[in-house]
């Protein structure tokens, strides 16, 4: 059972953090407008807020995919993780969408202008349509599993629809970038598939990390079924997911470094940054080694560490992908350097913190309200 006083503390910290960061962001946005962000018409149009938004959204869909796969195929022994994953998906979704709303020029107009436009040639239109479907099915599924107890029969149908909606959002998010043939760094047929695997990996990392967080990073405090999942099947699936993602990252980096295509010069630059090496070695290779070792794989400390490192690695990957695709200007010219330089502004960093606090506040509220750890004791 969750320690109520600790979760109260986390909730209070999250709410205070949310108020402070949201106030800073709103003050800066009201006083400076979009000049509070470090984007520019030289070529950096989508900056840190889009990185944060996509990271949270795709983590959410990854968690929903895992929850629905468990609901569809997992049977009773997956029970202790499903409700936590679903609620984390809700928390991540709200965190991400709130950041997008603060980034868009006209967020309120977007609510009617996108759905009524039927702009079927736009990947972004499809993404929004899938996000709407995803929100609806996610809320229905959460509602069906709201109360501790056996899964209702309708949960399986709902899970199938949720899986399809989550796959749709993630795949189309990949198309948004992958279809930009004028930007070779982004464009590739495998991007939607890579996004889906990346989301799944993120979902697994978040599920593992937050399960430990809810139990004070101790397996002793967990219910037996939860402990069984975390020491049995889950770390093996986690290792496999890291491996698959590592293959995508490695393949793209190698091709990027080899190719002469204009726009791919950015790979030379990225490969020379420490962020990329943290993403690769500390964030993927090390967790993979931890999860491959039979001794460490079921250990609470190494699982938590691996999950945390993967979460960070995926964030760096999202940053490098979205920013990297815009670093080579569309034209050479005296006004544009060879590579644009970019670092998030203070307001942009605050948006990240705001999203983290908001998602955590919602998550902890759900923890208290819905008893996410509930499971039928074996």
């Amino acid at each position, binding site marked *: 059972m969750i320690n109520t006083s600790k979760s109260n503390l986390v909730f209070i910290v999250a709410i205070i953090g949310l108020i402070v960061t949201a106030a800073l962001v709103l003050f800066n946005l009201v006083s400076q407008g*979009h000049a509070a962000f470090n984007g520019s018409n030289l070529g950096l149009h989508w900056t840190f807020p889009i990185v944060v938004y996509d990271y949270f959204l795709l983590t959410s869909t990854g968690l929903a995919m895992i929850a629905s796969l468990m609901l569809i195929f997992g049977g009773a022994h997956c029970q202790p993780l499903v409700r936590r994953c679903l609620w984390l998906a809700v928390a991540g979704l709200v965190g991400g969408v709130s950041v997008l709303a603060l980034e*868009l020029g006209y967020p309120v107009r*977007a609510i009617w*202008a996108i759905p009524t436009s039927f702009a079927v040639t736009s990947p972004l239109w499809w993404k929004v349509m899938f996000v709407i479907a995803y929100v609806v099915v996610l809320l229905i599924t959460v509602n069906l599993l709201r109360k501790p107890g056996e899964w209702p029969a309708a949960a399986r149908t709902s899970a199938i629809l949720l899986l399809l909606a989550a796959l749709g959002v993630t795949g189309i998010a990949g198309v948004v970038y992958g279809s930009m043939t004028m930007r070779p760094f982004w464009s590739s047929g495998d991007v939607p598939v890579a996004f889906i695997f990346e989301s799944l990996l993120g979902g697994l990392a978040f599920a593992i990390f937050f399960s430990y967080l809810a139990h004070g990073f101790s397996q002793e405090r967990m219910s037996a079924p939860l402990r069984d999942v975390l020491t049995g099947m889950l770390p093996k699936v986690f290792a496999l997911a890291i491996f698959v993602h590592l293959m995508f990252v490695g393949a793209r980096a190698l091709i990027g470094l080899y190719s*002469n295509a*204009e726009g791919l010069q950015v790979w030379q630059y990225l490969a020379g940054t420490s962020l990329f090496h943290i993403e690769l070695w500390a964030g993927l290779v090390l967790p993979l080694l931890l999860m491959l070792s039979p001794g460490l794989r079921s250990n609470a400390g190494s699982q938590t560490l691996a999950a945390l490192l993967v979460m960070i690695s995926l964030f760096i990957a999202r940053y490098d992908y979205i920013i990297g695709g815009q670093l*080579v200007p569309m*034209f*050479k010219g005296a006004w544009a350097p060879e590579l644009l330089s970019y670092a998030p502004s203070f307001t942009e960093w605050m948006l990240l913190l705001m999203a983290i606090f908001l998602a955590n506040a919602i998550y902890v509220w759900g923890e208290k309200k819905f008893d996410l750890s509930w499971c039928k004791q074996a």
Partner: protein
Amino acid sequence: MAKWGMVIDLDKCTGCQACTTACAMENNRLPGENWQDVLFYTEGTYPNVSMKWFPRPCFHCENPSCVSVCPTRATYKDPEGGFVLIDWNKCIGCKYCQVACPYGVRFFTDEKAVVQPDIRDVFPAKDDRQWDPPYKGPQDDPSRGIGIQPHGVVSKCTFCYHKVSKAPEGVADLDEDIPELKEYVPGCVRVCAPKARFFGDLDNPESYVNKLIADKRGVRLKEETGNKPQVYYLSGGAAAAVPGLRSMKDKS
């Protein structure tokens, strides 16, 4: 219906920026956020260096990627004349069109001012527009992206829609040397001192622009993107040239 297009003769272009200035005046552009710009760049290494320049409006592509990506249909291709325009009342400022335009000709101007001091502080607007310049163009049509740019939306060259669309039907070319037509000529074309710019109907076999494209082998920028610009360059010998590459450095 006409399909308006432009020809820019790079052998005649001197890089004087009269087009840039005329466009900024005509369309109330913020300093540095030029719908029509001339890019300068150097090629080669010292002592074998050459200075190049390249005038660049929006190309009003036949197959515009900015239109196909827009999730609200704010960016659209006008079937009457082939202009690519933005409906500022529908644009949500998602900037997908900016990301998707291979030519980098779209502007979201809410960012830090390109030229300091920020003229928006000197002439602040009372409504949701970017600024309130002392001289305003006579036209204001937000549904076509004409006038002073509002906050939160993207803008770009309109091919001077407010002039060209009023031209008498059926004319093959809009030339400032024809007195009765000069009012309909786009600002950048009208002021070009060496007469490096030509504007006419690409669908009219009689038009001078078509003749120039055929006789002087007009080329379009970045054909590989499939966007098919309605702006053609005559690129030959002297100084200015269609730039082939985005980068100046070798891979090594």
